[in-house]
Each structure stands twice: as C-alpha cells, then as structure tokens.
C-alpha cells in the first residue's frame, strides 16, 4: 500500500477516473462512435454497392459487346447472301432476256419467211390470172376469125342437141 502511495496511486482518484472514463466512453459511444460507425458502415455499403454496380455494368457491357459482335456477324452473313442472290438473279435475268430475244428473233424470221412465201404465192396467183385473162382475151379475138359459118352451125347444132337432153 505504501508502495502504491509512493507511486502517487490514489484509489479514490482512480475510481473517479475510471468512472470518468466510463462516462466519457459511454458518452463517446453514444454520441460519437455510433454515428461515425454508422457513417462508415453506410460508406462501406455504398462503396460495395458501387463496386457491385460497376461489376454488373461491366458484365452487361461485355454481354452487349458480345451481342453486337453476333449481330454484326449475322448482318455480314446476310449481306453476303443477298449479294450472292442478286448475282444469281442477275445471271438468270440475263439468260432469260437472251433466250427471249433469241426466240423473238427466230419468230420474226419465221414470220418474214411466211410473209415472203405468201406474197410470192399471191404474186404468182395474180400473174397467172393476168396471163390467163390476156390469153383468153387474145383467144376470144382470134377465134372470131377462125370460126367460119360451117363451124358456127356445127356448134349451134351440138348446143341444140344438148338443150334437147336437158330439162326445161
């Protein structure tokens, strides 16, 4: 006990200091530590949320980038397909046009040939008609000179015989 007194240790003071300390501790705990801890906790939570959100955003960004890549890929493939189709179609259209032009040309030639044949036939017919009418006309004029009275009488008798046979 004297040792403790030599060191300046006072029990009442100690007790009072302990009480004081407790009171201060309690006051600090109630009015300082709690709010600060609360703030810290909130900050931590916010930071954690921020980290979580950024992770999610990164994830979504990655997903979006992936999607974008896929869409681009698909679009490229489709564009390629469209170009191929267009090429094939153009080839087909060209071929069809060529075929139809050829057919039209052949038809024109056939029509022209037919027309030529027809016109030739008509010309021949006309010529034959003209020649025959000229020949008959000439014959009619010439025969007048050839037939004598005897010939005419003979023809007349024949005609009358034929009339006698026919019904009247």
């Amino acid at each position: 006990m004297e040792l403790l007194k030599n060191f300046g240790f006072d029990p009442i003071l100690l007790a009072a200091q302990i009480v004081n300390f407790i009171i201060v501790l309690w006051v600090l705990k109630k009015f300082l530590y709690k709010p600060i801890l609360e703030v810290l906790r909130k900050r931590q939570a916010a930071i954690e949320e921020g980290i979580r959100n950024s992770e999610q955003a990164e994830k979504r960004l990655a997903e979006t980038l992936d999607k974008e890549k896929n869409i681009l890929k698909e679009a490229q493939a489709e564009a390629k397909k469209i170009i191929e189709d267009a090429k094939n179609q153009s080839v087909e259209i060209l071929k069809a046009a060529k075929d139809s032009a050829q057919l039209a040309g052949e038809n024109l030639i056939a029509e022209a040939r037919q027309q030529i044949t027809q016109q030739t036939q008509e010309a021949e017919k006309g010529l034959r008609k003209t020649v025959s009418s000229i020949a008959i006309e000439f014959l009619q004029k010439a025969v007048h000179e050839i037939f004598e009275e005897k010939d005419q009488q003979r023809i007349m008798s024949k005609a009358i015989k034929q009339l006698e046979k026919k019904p009247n």
Partner: protein
Amino acid sequence: MNKKYVKRLCVASYKGNTLDQKRVKKITSLLTRKELKEYINILKLIEKKKTVFVTLASKLQLNKSTFQKLFPNKKIVYNYDTSLIAGVQTINYDIVYNLNVKNELEKIEASINE
C-alpha cells in the same frame, strides 16, 4: 285481200297466153296501192316465167322453129351477142344454159386460176 287472191287475179288477167288489157284495167281500178304493187310484182314474175331469152352469137344461127319446139307455150325473145363467138345462151326464168364458146373459154380460165 291477201297474196293468194292477188295471185288469182293475176292469173285471171290473162286471156290465153297474153294479158288482156280490159281485164287489167278493171282489176287495177279496184286495188289499193299496196295490192297494186303486189299485183304488178306477181305479173312480172308470171311474164318472166312465160318468157325464154335466147342469146345467139350471130343472126346466121337463128332457128326459130327449133327453139319453139324446145320451149313450147313460151314467148321467146332473141338477142345477139358476138362475144359468145359461137353457140347459144338460154335463160328460162331461173335456169340458165351457157352452151357457147365464150363460156368454155371462161371455164378454162377459171380452172387455170385455181
């Protein structure tokens, strides 16, 4: 008065083979305009049926008695057409006989043109 009666009147207008003028005058005075038209048309038809038109190439071929025998009880009207060349053409109402050189030549022309 219908067509049948007008026809009877037309037949009655004839005395033998020729038209009796008195009868014709009497009948025409009794007919209406429409009936008169009918009467004239039927008379024309009768005359046509009674007449034979004979066309010859020349007067030298004329043989009246022969044709009279061929068409008894008919009036024969003779025409001359040198274009027939030789032979005869007879028209007996709607029967036509072309027995002449011109017709033969036309037949030849038609067969050539076929």
